[in-house]
């Protein structure tokens, strides 16, 4: 057997993936992810910022879900930032303001970006706690009562709800729904060792004075939620991931939409990691520096390497060769199919299987399956909620989807193309 570079690469990707899954499961089994729920003793003032850009379809629902929160009215402040919308968003906000004094509007004539919008809201905010609700997200009414008690620990800088995809209908949305569940379970485990690396847009609550002390949100950053999380981690604040309350978010329906969104996320990840490179492999930041950031850094490379090898070795080269070879035998597919089936049976031997690959494949599948099972049970979801194909499709396609986006990101970064948020 000749050991090739591609074999070494596959072994490397496999070992790294297996190591991380093993580490997460060990952390889960040793630390547990049960949540202690304290009762909210007093009701601090909370500011909810809702940045909106051309959200006429969803802005009413988002504001209503904020207004419907089970929380004393006088303790709730809602700041909607119309960030240069050209549709009917502003009028909808103004109409709602007539009936509800808690809504305040910051109007941008031109689009300034999310970071700047959030900072303006932060300046205007009167709450002890500050949260952002993306205009495509909806929260459960118990959210504040469940999330705020976790700030009793003064080390906590941010608390995050369980984020789920709202009413997935298309295959692409269902795949993302599955991905979000697994990702949430993973973040929940990471939360037990202070390794949450991103406080996403939908209803992450921040201790306002902490964000102010750290200088607010990064305005020119394309993933300001990742950046603020890195800054919180760098300054040794805890980010707590919860499972006991949920926020629902809309996800892109089209492949193009998914690509665009993920492209921004992944590119932002790489750019921010570059800015915070001193934290990577830095023992000073504990597991976050030694395990989590290297994992975030390497995941894109692993996905692209695996996809590249798989596509090149197993799809591209064999397909080209097949077409070339078959062109010499008049594309007599039927004959070769018959030949293949005959050979399959006449040459069959139990020794023909590659047991090493089967064993290694099953090992990683059992581990991933365990993680998926735990993710479903902890997020209180049924396996067949969105059809029996959701999980197989997720397992089959998600890797390709992510790797495809990563590949695009690497190419664009090589040519220094970075879009605005």
């Amino acid at each position, binding site marked *: 057997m000749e050991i090739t570079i591609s074999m070494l690469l596959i*072994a490397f990707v496999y070992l790294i993936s297996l190591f991380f899954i093993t580490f997460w499961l060990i*952390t889960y089994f040793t630390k547990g992810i049960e949540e202690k729920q304290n009762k909210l003793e007093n009701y601090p003032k909370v500011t909810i910022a809702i940045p909106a850009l051309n959200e006429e379809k969803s802005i009413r629902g988002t504001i209503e879900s904020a207004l419907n929160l089970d929380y004393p009215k006088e303790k709730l402040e809602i700041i909607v930032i119309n960030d240069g919308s050209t549709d009917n968003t502003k009028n909808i906000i103004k109409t709602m303001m007539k009936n509800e004094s808690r809504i305040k509007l910051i109007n941008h004539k031109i689009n300034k970006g999310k970071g700047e919008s959030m900072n303006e809201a932060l300046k205007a905010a009167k709450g002890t706690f500050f949260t952002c609700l993306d205009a495509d997200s909806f929260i459960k009414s118990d959210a504040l009562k469940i999330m705020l008690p976790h700030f009793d620990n003064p080390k906590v800088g941010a608390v995050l709800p369980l984020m789920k995809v709202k009413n997935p209908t298309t295959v692409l949305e269902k795949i993302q729904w599955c991905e979000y569940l697994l990702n949430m379970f993973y973040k929940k485990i990471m939360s037990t*060792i202070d390794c949450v690396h991103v406080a996403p847009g939908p209803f992450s609550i921040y201790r306002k004075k902490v964000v102010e002390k750290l200088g607010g949100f990064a305005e020119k950053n394309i993933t300001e939620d990742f950046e603020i999380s890195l800054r919180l981690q760098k300054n040794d604040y805890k980010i707590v991931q919860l499972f006991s309350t949920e926020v629902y978010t809309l996800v892109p329906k089209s492949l193009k939409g998914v690509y665009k969104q993920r492209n921004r996320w992944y590119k932002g990840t790489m750019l921010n990691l570059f800015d915070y490179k001193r934290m990577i492999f830095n023992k000073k930041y504990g597991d976050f520096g030694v*395990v989590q950031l290297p994992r975030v850094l390497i995941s894109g490379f692993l996905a692209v390497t695996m996809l590249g090898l798989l596509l090149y070795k197993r799809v591209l080269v064999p397909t080209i060769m097949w077409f070339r070879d078959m062109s010499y*035998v008049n594309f007599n597919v039927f004959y070769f199919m018959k*030949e293949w089936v005959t050979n399959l049976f006449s*040459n069959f031997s139990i020794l023909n299987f590659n*047991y090493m690959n089967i064993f290694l494949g099953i090992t990683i599948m059992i581990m991933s399956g365990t993680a998926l099972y735990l993710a479903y049970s902890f997020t209180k979801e049924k396996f067949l909620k969105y059809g029996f194909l959701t999980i197989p499709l997720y397992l089959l396609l998600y890797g390709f989807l992510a790797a495809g986006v990563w590949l695009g990101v690497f190419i664009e970064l090589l040519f220094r193309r970075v879009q605005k948020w």
Partner: protein
Amino acid sequence: MVKRDVSKKNLIIAIILTLLLFSMGILIGLLVSERRISHLEQISKDQRLDYESLQLQFLMITDSNKEKSCPVLIESLEQNIKRLISTGEKIEKYSEDLNLNSKEFETLKRDYTLTQLNFWFLVKKSREICEKDVVPIIYFYSNDKDCAYCSTQSRILTYVKGKFKERTMIFSFDGSFEQEALIPILKKVYNVQEYPSLIIDEKTYSGLITTNELEEIICSKLKEHEEC
């Protein structure tokens, strides 16, 4: 401020478990490789016996029993060569998987090469004695990357074999397998300088031979055949 720790214990357990599982996979691969070797050795033994049996059958052919014995002999030859090809494929496939037995695989491949040559001689001789209308083809391929059209030639040969059935008998030799001393000798004798190369009735055809060209050559050698 939160106190930062590295979960050393969990990290070490994860590393150990990962390496343990990976090593188990490799161990399984190696154990299977051992089993494969003994399986192939058994097949090789059987094939050598088959060859001896055929050789005896061949020696027993006389002018008087030719009519009855020849078809049986040719039929057995065809069956044996089919099995031989399947063994060759297994040796190639198994030796590509993880193993520590490259020496054993090399011995098996030598054994396979020699058995093929024996069968080739037998086919040539039976062709003369039995006056059988059959075209033996020697196919020199290479597993190295320098043979861009070996997979094409293999497919063409499979296709043509399907058309002419027992009227062609194909013997494939890895031209780069010089561990068997007979390979360089054969290459020299037939002036094989590139891959793929075909040898049909002592004539060497270098480079890719297309389906039509090969069919024409075979037809020119056969006395009669419905495909010609």
